[in-house]
C-alpha cells in the first residue's frame, strides 16, 4: 500500500514465516516507519495527524460519556448535569468532548483549506480528496447529532430546524419517518443517540481508506511537484513523527486552555436551558462550524423559477457541500500549488475570508440590518442586512468553484516551478529564487 517498493526484510525464521502468511509487520514498517514523505512539508501538513488525534479523543471520551448518559427525552438533560456534577471527572470528560468537536472542526478546516491552497486534490489524488469530503460530511452529521443529545433548548430546536430542512427536500412523510413520530421527541433522541455512536466508527473506516489512498499516491507538498527520488523525501519515522508529537502538544495546549478556562466559549447559553417543545427560543443558532452552510441556506430568501425559497435554500446548502466532490475536475490548472499561481493566490485568500464571513453571518439573528438606509412602511429599519451579506458571500463561494477555478487554469500565467523539491529547499536556504545549482540537489541526504 505504501508508495515505493517495500524496504522490510524479516530478521529471523519466525518473522519470515509470519511475513509469508500475514505481512502485518511489513505493513507497519512500510506505512509507519519508512514511508517516504516529501521533506519540504510545512506545519499546515501536520493537521492530518492532528485530526486522527481528535478522532481518537472524541471516540474515547464519547464511549465513557455514553456509560453515564441517558438517551431519554425526560432524563437526558439531567443525565448530562449528573455527569457534570457527580461522575468522577465527568465535567472534564464532557468539556473535552464538547470542545473536542470544535477543535476537530478547526483542524479539519485548516486541513481542507491547505488542500485547496496547494491543489492537493489534483491528479492523482482525486479519490483521496473525495474520501476526505465524505469524512467532512460525516463529521457534520455527527456534530449535529451530538448537538441534539443534551436535549437543551438549542438541541431540541436545532433538531427541529435541521429535520424540517430535510423535510423541505424530501417531504413530510420523510420527516415523520426520521422523527419516529409527529414531532422531534423521545424516539428522535434515541435514534440520534444510536447514530451519534455509530458514525464516528464510520468516520474511522473512511479515514482508513483516506490514509490508504494517501499512502498509495504519496503526500503532496508545497511545491506541488512530485518527489523525483530519495533526495526529495525523508522516512516518516522519525522525521515526521517527531514533528507530530510537537504540533499535537501545541494543539493540545490551545485545546486545554479552552477546556479549562473557557469551556463554554463555542457554545450558546441556551444549551443550559432544558428543552421545552412549547417555547421557541428567540434565536436558533447552529454550532459555529456549520454557520457558513446555515448562512447560505438563509441567503436564499427569493423564489427561483418554480423552486420556492425554502427548497432553494436547502439545495444551495447541499450544493455547497456537493460541489466539493467535483473540485478535482473544476480546477483546470496544471500547476498544483498556489505559491506559483499569483491570481489564484488572491482568489484563495478572498475565499478564506468569505467563508469566515459566512460562518459569522450564519450565527447572527436573521434579518439584522448592518447598514441602515431607510425605514420601511411598518417602521422597521431597512437597508443592507445579514441576508444581503450572506447572498454576496454565497455568490463568491460558488463563483470560486464554478467560475474562478475552471477559468484561471486557462488564463493565468503561473510562476516558474523549481526543478525538484530538493532544489526548491536549497533555493529557499540560499535566500530566494529557484536558481540553485542543479548538482547540489542530491547532497544533503548522505546522513539521513
Amino acid at each position, binding site marked *: 500500500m505504501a508508495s515505493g517498493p517495500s524496504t522490510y526484510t524479516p530478521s529471523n525464521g519466525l518473522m519470515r514465516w509470519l511475513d509469508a502468511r500475514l505481512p502485518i509487520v511489513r505493513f507497519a514498517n512500510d506505512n509507519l516507519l519508512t514511508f517516504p514523505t516529501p521533506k519540504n512539508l510545512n506545519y499546515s501538513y501536520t493537521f492530518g495527524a492532528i485530526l486522527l488525534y481528535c478522532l481518537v479523543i472524541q471516540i474515547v471520551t464519547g464511549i465513557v460519556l455514553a456509560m453515564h448518559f441517558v438517551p431519554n427525552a425526560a432524563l437526558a438533560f439531567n443525565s448530562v448535569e449528573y455527569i457534570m456534577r457527580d461522575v468522577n471527572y465527568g465535567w472534564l470528560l464532557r468539556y473535552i468532548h464538547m470542545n473536542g468537536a470544535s477543535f476537530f472542526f478547526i483542524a479539519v478546516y485548516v486541513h481542507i483549506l491547505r488542500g485547496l491552497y496547494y491543489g492537493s486534490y489534483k491528479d492523482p489524488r482525486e479519490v483521496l480528496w473525495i474520501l476526505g469530503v465524505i469524512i467532512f460530511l460525516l463529521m457534520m452529521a455527527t456534530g449535529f447529532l451530538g448537538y441534539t443529545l443534551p436535549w437543551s433548548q438549542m438541541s431540541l430546536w436545532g433538531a427541529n430546524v435541521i429535520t424540517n430542512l430535510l423535510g423541505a427536500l424530501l417531504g413530510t412523510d420523510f420527516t415523520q419517518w426520521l422523527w419516529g413520530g409527529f414531532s422531534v421527541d423521545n424516539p428522535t433522541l434515541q435514534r440520534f443517540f444510536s447514530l451519534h455512536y455509530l458514525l464516528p466508527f464510520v468516520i474511522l473506516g473512511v479515514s482508513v481508506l483516506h490514509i490508504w489512498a494517501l499512502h498509495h499516491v504519496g503526500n503532496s507538498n508545497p511545491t506541488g511537484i512530485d518527489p523525483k527520488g530519495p533526495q526529495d523525501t525523508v522516512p516518516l519515522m522519525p522525521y515526521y513523527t517527531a514533528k507530530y508529537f*510537537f504540533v499535537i502538544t501545541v494543539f493540545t495546549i490551545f485545546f486545554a486552555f479552552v477546556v479549562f478556562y473557557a469551556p463554554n466559549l463555542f457554545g450558546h447559553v441556551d444549551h443550559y436551558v432544558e428543552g421545552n417543545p412549547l417555547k421557541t427560543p428567540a434565536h436558533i443558532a447552529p454550532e459555529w462550524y456549520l454557520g457558513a452552510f446555515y448562512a447560505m441556506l438563509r441567503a436564499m430568501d427569493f423564489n427561483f423559477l418554480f423552486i420556492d425559497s425554502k427548497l432553494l435554500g436547502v439545495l444551495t446548502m447541499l450544493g455547497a457541500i456537493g460541489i466539493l466532490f467535483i473540485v478535482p475536475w473544476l480546477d483546470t490548472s496544471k500547476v498544483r500549488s498556489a505559491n506559483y499561481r499569483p491570481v489564484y493566490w488572491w482568489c484563495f485568500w478572498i475565499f478564506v475570508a468569505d467563508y469566515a*464571513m459566512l460562518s459569522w453571518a450564519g450565527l447572527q439573528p436573521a434579518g439584522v440590518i448592518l447598514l441602515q438606509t431607510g425605514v420601511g412602511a411598518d417602521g422597521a429599519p431597512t437597508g443592507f442586512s445579514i441576508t444581503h451579506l450572506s447572498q454576496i458571500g454565497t455568490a463568491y463561494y460558488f463563483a470560486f468553484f464554478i467560475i474562478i477555478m475552471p477559468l484561471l487554469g486557462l488564463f493565468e500565467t503561473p510562476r516558474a516551478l523549481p526543478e525538484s523539491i530538493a532544489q526548491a529547499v536549497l533555493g529557499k536556504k540560499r535566500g530566494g529564487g529557484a536558481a540553485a545549482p542543479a548538482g547540489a540537489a542530491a547532497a544533503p541526504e548522505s546522513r539521513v
Partner: protein
Amino acid sequence: MRKIIIAAALTLGTVLPFGAAQASTAGAEPPHVDFSFDGLFGTFDRNQLKRGFQVYKEVCSSCHSLKLLAYRNLKDPGGPEFTEDEAKALAAEAQIPTLDDAGEPTTRKGTLADHFAYQTTPQEHATLKGAYGSIPPDLSLMAKGREHGPVYIHALISVGYEHEAPEGVTIPAGGNYNSIFPGGVIAMPKPLSDGQVAYAEKEIPQTVDQYAKDVSAFLMWVAEPKLEARHRLGFGVILFLGIMGVLFFLSYRRVWRNVDH
C-alpha cells in the same frame, strides 16, 4: 503584503465567528461586576457563597427551586464548605413531601441526599402559577443559561428594578418593569430591599447590591460546582504540556538537524 493578507484572512476566520453578538430583544447591558471566581486562578469566596446561600434560602427559595443541588453539596470542597453537621442541620429544616404508611400525603425532615426542590407538590405549582402566571424557573443553571451569567443575575435583581418604565411601555397587570430583562416586563416583583437579610458578618453592607452580588456568586457555584477544580487542574495540565512541548520541539529540531528542508 502577502503576510498582512494572510494574517487578515486568518483573523477574520478565527475571531469573527465567535464574536457573534446576539442582539434581538435583549434587555439593557448589565453593569460589570468583578467576581472572585473570574480569571484563570479565580476561586469562590466561601463567605460570599454562605451569604449567597442565606439570601437564596430566605428570599429566593420561597418560589425558586434548585433541583440540581443536593444538601450534601453544601459540604463539598470548592463550594461554601459548610461542615457536615451544618449541612445536616440545614437539610433537617426542609420539609420534604412524602407518603405515610397509610398512603396519605405527609412530610418528613430533609436529609443530605435531598435536593432543593421546594415546589414539588401540584398544589404549590398551582399557587405559584396563580400568583405569577407561570411557574418561577428553577435556578440551578441560571448562571450559565443566560448571556453574561452571574453579572446578568446581579443586574436583574438589583439595578433592573431601579428605573421607571419609559414612555410608551405599558406594563400589563401582574407585570413589573425591569430594564435588564429581555422585553422589559417581568412577572417577579422586586425581590430584594436594603436590610432585608441579616448577615452575621456585620462589616458586610446589607444592601440590595451586596445581596445581589452574593446570591449571584452562589448561583454561579450551583451552576458550575467544579469551577475551582477545573481552574486548578488546568494550570497543572497546561504547565505540563508546555514543558512537554519544549522537549518535543527540541527533539524535533535534533532529528531534523542534518536535513535541509
